[in-house]
């Protein structure tokens, strides 16, 4: 089985860059890294198909030895579709996180931090949005206030749909949900 050196080098570079990006805290970079790693893996499958040849269609005079191996291409098609779906989902997730907190970084788990700092550990250092190394830079200064309101609206709409009586009374016992602000301008 001979292998194209160019493909091999491209694959290695894609893997290296992709893994580097996936180790970042910024979710956008993780997404880019995932795309690179996904494509590198697709290249790996192509490389494993062996030598290239003519289209694998049985015609007169074409022997099996001259054909390309079709199976890896089928595998890659499936893998591409999966990568596509997952990256769409990741984008939606990044957008949601951005709307909620103007935040692109993955924060430490609060329980882990508490454990690390001891019994009464309180997370004091929160990464400073302005100085943090995100794609959004200094734009990331405040959360989109309407995002939370929209969420409440959604919940209220869902509640109304199932139980009209319940929705009319304010959601009790939850300070965050209780005051329903008037609808801000939606974006």
């Amino acid at each position, binding site marked *: *089985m001979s292998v194209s050196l160019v493909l091999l080098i491209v694959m290695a570079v894609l893997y290296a860059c992709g893994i580097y990006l*996936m180790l970042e805290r910024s*979710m956008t970079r*993780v997404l880019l890294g*995932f795309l690179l*790693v*996904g494509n590198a*893996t697709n290249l*790996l*499958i192509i*490389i*494993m198909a*062996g030598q290239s040849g003519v289209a694998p269609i049985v015609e007169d005079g074409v022997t099996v030895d001259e054909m390309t*191996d079709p*199976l*890896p291409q089928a*595998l890659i098609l*499936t*893998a591409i579709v*999966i990568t596509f*779906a*997952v990256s769409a*989902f*990741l984008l939606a*997730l990044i957008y*949601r*996180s951005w709307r*909620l*907190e103007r935040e692109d970084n*993955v*924060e430490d*788990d*609060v*329980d*882990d*931090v*508490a*454990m690390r700092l*001891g*019994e*009464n*550990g*309180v*997370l004091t250092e929160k990464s400073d949005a302005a100085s943090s190394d995100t794609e959004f830079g200094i734009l990331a200064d405040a959360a989109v206030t309407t995002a939370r309101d929209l*969420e409440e609206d*959604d*919940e209220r709409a*869902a*509640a109304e*749909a*199932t*139980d009209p009586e*319940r*929705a009319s009374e304010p959601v009790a*016992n*939850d300070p965050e949900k209780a005051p329903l602000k008037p609808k801000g301008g939606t974006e």
Partner: protein
Amino acid sequence: MNALVPLVVMIPLIGAALALILGKRPALQRIVTVVALTAVLVVGVILLLVVDAGEPLMVEVGGWAAPFGIVLIVDRLAALMVVVSAAVLLAVLIFSVGQGLADGHDETPVSIYYPTYLILGTGVFNAFIAGDLFNLYVGFEILLVSSYVLITLGGTQARIRAGVTYIVVSLVSSMFFLASIAMIYGAVGTVNIAQISLRMAEIPQDVQNILHVMLLVGFGIKAAVFPLSFWLPDSYPTAPAPVTAVFAGLLTKVGVYSIIRTETVIFPGPDLNPALMIVALLTMVVGVLGAIAQADIKRLLSFTLVSHIGFMILGVSLGSAAGTAAAIYYIVHHIVVQTTLFLATGLIERQGGSTSINKLGGLLAASPIIAILFFIPALNLGGIPPFSGFIGKLALFEASAEQGSVLAYVLIGAGALVSLLTLYSLVRVWNLAFWRGADEVEGYESELLTNLSEAPQGATVTKSRTTPRLMIGATAAMVALGVALTVFAGPLYAISDRAGENLEGPSFYVDIVFPDGPAPIDGGAE
């Protein structure tokens, strides 16, 4: 009977499509979902009976002959796993229906929950009956992508944070898996598991080891085996209670199932068994030590989940029919019991308004039913006789002693210690949350609570609304199922035993796919 095999995947998939169409009609959607899972359960039971009575089933999808087309295979192990997962999925579904009816779907919002849940089931079932490595990958992806949706359900900041950890780690494991499929294809020119098994013997040992380790790393991340388990306690607890329950019960077990297939069919040689034993030891010990340090019940249970994955890996790593049989029984037991404990924790959260043992108290007086529903599976998980946890552990220890190496005896000791520590952490929950009076919670001093730390803002859940009967009923059904595993341990263990025998060496599995003897070595794709 072969016609039943694809139904296991088709029913939930079609059900998901229907449920999605019925998005505006929650009542119909619930009915479709429950009916679909019940149907799968029935089909699964029939399959198990048929397969256990006689021949395993094999379906060539689309009529393409074995090494070229995709094959679906139901042997005893696959059928058993399908039945248990269908039962657990159904019980958790009913639990979440109850929760949804009571809370106006705050936790499990709107129209996407039920379809996604069914697709999760599709992925799990597909992974169990796949006879083709790439089809297994597709099954994994189906269940993973729907689990991404479920774990970030509602899209709150906490869930997105936990979800990102989970998603990125899962993506890495998928990439490992896909890359190892590519390498295996490069080495043996096929993705059919039976044919891989036949051809792998001709590959040089060092290449085999590389492929073997790559596959195991991919599956190990999914199964949360020790050095690769860091993500689990971080991401599971934030999801809604039913979602956490089904993830804890099923998703890691799909990883363990794949490891069993890898170890028994693809790489049946004993080369990596000692390494697996050490990994099993570390998983058990590190997991349970994590559990002891937790104050939050959900996190505590997540750590015991990791710890008990070690027991299953121990059974697999013994490389004997007895070990595999014990591992299979233990998987069945653990799926049921771990799910039950998470459901019971969901009830505790509603009743007590928290899942932190620092803040809970007086639950025994407040709700004796919940107390019983927590107590029985807790003892079961800790391995108190006569429960199934005890039977499973005893079988594992017996198989280890049979193997007789020094490492096996070390593992027996560690296993006993881990059971004790599991019991300790669960009994502490019992003492504090249930036995302690509600008025004693303020300023309570006890050695049980020293060095327990938790997040400052943790546990601000709304204290209950009532606990619906449907939720209690679903949890009680799961407890009953757990007890049934004990009562009917004889027949169940006999099935596991036969499944274990089938998995001793790859020949049984290969014969299912190639009943007329192995295909000639040069008859493959290249």
